[in-house]
């Protein structure tokens, strides 16, 4: 589908690979074969059908919008790649629709998925409803509480949402639980991994479905600005919008690529509690094996995975895609961090200056523009607006009330005392 067509390596440098229970290996081999045939070689017209559905059902292409206020503020041309306008409100549909359609081509009868912020779960539930496949979504208990609107949306689309109570009840635990389900039902079930993580071929396959973002952005920049951007900025949790936004620019060596990670409340690991109060695995993690792949991880000296943190549940993950880890090692991608407070300020800024309420994930990418130097950004920058912020409003109200964010609306109006009654 992209210029990387027919490239399907199982490793990116030393990263990647297939570290999964033997019971899953035949399914992974079957998936690898199906990915090669249907996606890379368009067997049975798969790619044509995918493109038609992602256009008619999904609403592609998404606009590349020139952001006037941000451009003036940062003295560079800022273009926003509006994945928030994709059906479902996030880039996640590109991958979910691709994988559910592939499962259909493979003759699978059931879909399982996991979700952190609920965006991937929502996209998968929508794609499964659209293609008439039963779907179960695993979601951490804590994330269910943080993301109620998305949980309801999944249920509306007919998906079952299974709460996961292990650990801190976030994405890491939900992935483990989805893998356990898959190990039990592997003969008739496809596991739609939500990011460029997991065993080969998932990181390559998800990147391939998401690379439509940079494929369009690259073409749109040529048409609208007359050339390629100097830099591309995308937030990075697992890294699917990141790889999607970067993929087609990787070989354009003059384009700088910045992956913005969740700096949380601190970049230091709390050794005593075994918690990293951030999700910055590219910036602070070390090499290890988690959820089927060798990659960069937040782990302690023994190799136990530590709990991550981010104000954005979509970024709250201790690992990251192996290809992204490799591109960072190669010096092609620069990892940077934005902490919770700055991300919230970024959320309010984009809402006020451009009339776009972004997902908290996206808010990290936008917020980093505030820290970036003009040398880093160059004369033009594409920022991936990975998703819209409706799902995060409850969290944003709660988190904004706790802080003194100068560009936030007057929060007294929303607090229990300020509301003065409940009409």
């Amino acid at each position, binding site marked *: 589908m992209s210029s990387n067509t027919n490239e399907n390596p199982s490793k990116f440098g030393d990263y990647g690979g*297939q570290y999964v229970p033997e019971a899953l290996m035949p*399914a992974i081999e079957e998936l690898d074969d199906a990915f090669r045939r249907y996606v890379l070689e368009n067997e049975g017209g798969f790619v044509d059908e995918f493109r038609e559905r992602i256009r008619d059902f999904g609403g592609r292409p998404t606009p590349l919008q020139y952001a006037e206020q941000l451009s003036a503020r940062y003295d560079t041309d800022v273009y926003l790649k509006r994945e928030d306008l994709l059906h479902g409100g996030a880039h996640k549909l590109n991958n979910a629709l691709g994988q559910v359609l592939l499962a259909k081509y493979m003759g699978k009868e059931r879909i399982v998925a996991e979700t952190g912020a609920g965006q991937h779960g929502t996209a998968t539930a929508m794609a499964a409803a659209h293609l008439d496949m039963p779907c179960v979504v695993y979601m951490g208990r804590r994330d269910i509480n943080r993301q109620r609107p998305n949980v309801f949306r999944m249920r509306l689309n007919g998906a079952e949402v299974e709460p996961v109570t292990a650990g801190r009840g976030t994405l890491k635990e939900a992935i483990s639980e989805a893998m*356990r389900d898959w190990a039990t039902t592997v003969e008739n079930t496809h596991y739609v991994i939500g990011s460029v993580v997991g065993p080969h071929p998932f990181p390559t396959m998800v990147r391939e479905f998401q690379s439509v973002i940079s494929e369009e952005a690259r073409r749109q920049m040529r048409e609208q600005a007359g050339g390629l951007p100097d830099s591309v900025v995308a937030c990075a949790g697992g890294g699917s919008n990141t790889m999607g936004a970067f993929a087609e620019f990787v070989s354009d060596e003059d384009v700088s690529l910045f992956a913005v990670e969740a700096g949380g409340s601190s970049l230091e690991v709390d050794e005593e509690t075994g918690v990293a109060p951030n999700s910055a695995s590219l910036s602070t993690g070390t090499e290890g094996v988690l959820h089927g792949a060798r990659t960069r991880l937040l782990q302690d000296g023994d190799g136990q995975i530590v709990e991550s943190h981010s104000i954005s549940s979509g970024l709250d993950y201790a690992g990251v895609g192996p290809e992204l880890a490799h591109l960072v090692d190669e010096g092609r991608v620069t990892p940077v961090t934005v902490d919770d407070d700055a991300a919230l300020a970024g959320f309010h800024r984009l809402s006020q200056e451009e009339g776009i309420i972004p997902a908290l994930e996206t808010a990290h990418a936008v917020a980093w523009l505030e820290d970036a130097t003009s040398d880093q950004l160059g004369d033009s920058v594409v920022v991936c607006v990975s998703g819209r912020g409706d799902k995060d409003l409850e969290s944003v109200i709660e988190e904004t009330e706790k802080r003194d964010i100068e560009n936030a609306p007057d929060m007294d109006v929303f607090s229990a005392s300020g509301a003065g009654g409940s009409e």
Partner: protein
Amino acid sequence: MSRLDEAFADGPAFVPYLALGDPDLESSLEYVKALERGGADVIELGLAFSEPIAEGPTIQSAVVRSLEGGMTPTKFLDAVEDLDVDVPLVCMTYYNLIYQFGEEAGPRPFVERAAEVGLSGFVVPDLPAEESGPLREACDEFGLDLIFIVAPTTRGERLERLMDQTSGYVYVQARLGVTGAKADVSDQTGESLDRLSEWDVPKAVGFGISSGEQAREVVAAGADGVIVGSALVDIVAEGTSAASRTQSGDVAEGHENGDSTEEVAARLEEKARELKEGALAGAQARTRPERT
């Protein structure tokens, strides 16, 4: 002949699993000795990893208890070194812990130390044959066995690749899914054993076996051994929650008073004996006609 081969040489082997450090190190060492008294031929010791993706709820909980009790790879290996049992011990854990151990990257430092403390081999559920090269090499260097799991989905070329790689014994996964006790032993067991009939490595069947009767059935169906985890971990879990009830929530203290640990150990020994006897009965009952 490795120590594991020897353990399977005299009739069907009973291979119990416990997570070391569940619910605390001292108790779990007593439990291991109880399993030996009950007739264990090999003992699989779980080294707790924070993301046990191949485990069902029972063993996940054991892993959490062990980690909360402060288990680390170093403590695990030191404890094995001090453990006074005669049966061969196998370490069951996930690859990241093996990979991260020691100063040098890769599995070699862990395997070297494992050999020093007297471990006989490894089971690593998230390490398929494709990624096992470096660990296999280290195991060969230090004379340890690397046991692979054959799943009901393993067929054809994959089966051959595993046959080349596995040593000590092969862990035959009785049914799809994750670990956990089940009321019935899957009929996939016989089918799986048939597929491995050409292999000259002992075949130990696990996943779902919880009673002497099931052990008997599995051995009668042709297994050289039975692996039992969750049914034993359940006994530890019940003992632990009983202890925490009597000590108003403080599990460690509950075990320090000794009674509970002894009681749990006695129940484990009894369960082990039931399973071992079931396996022996299965061998006697093995009345499968010779294949022509």
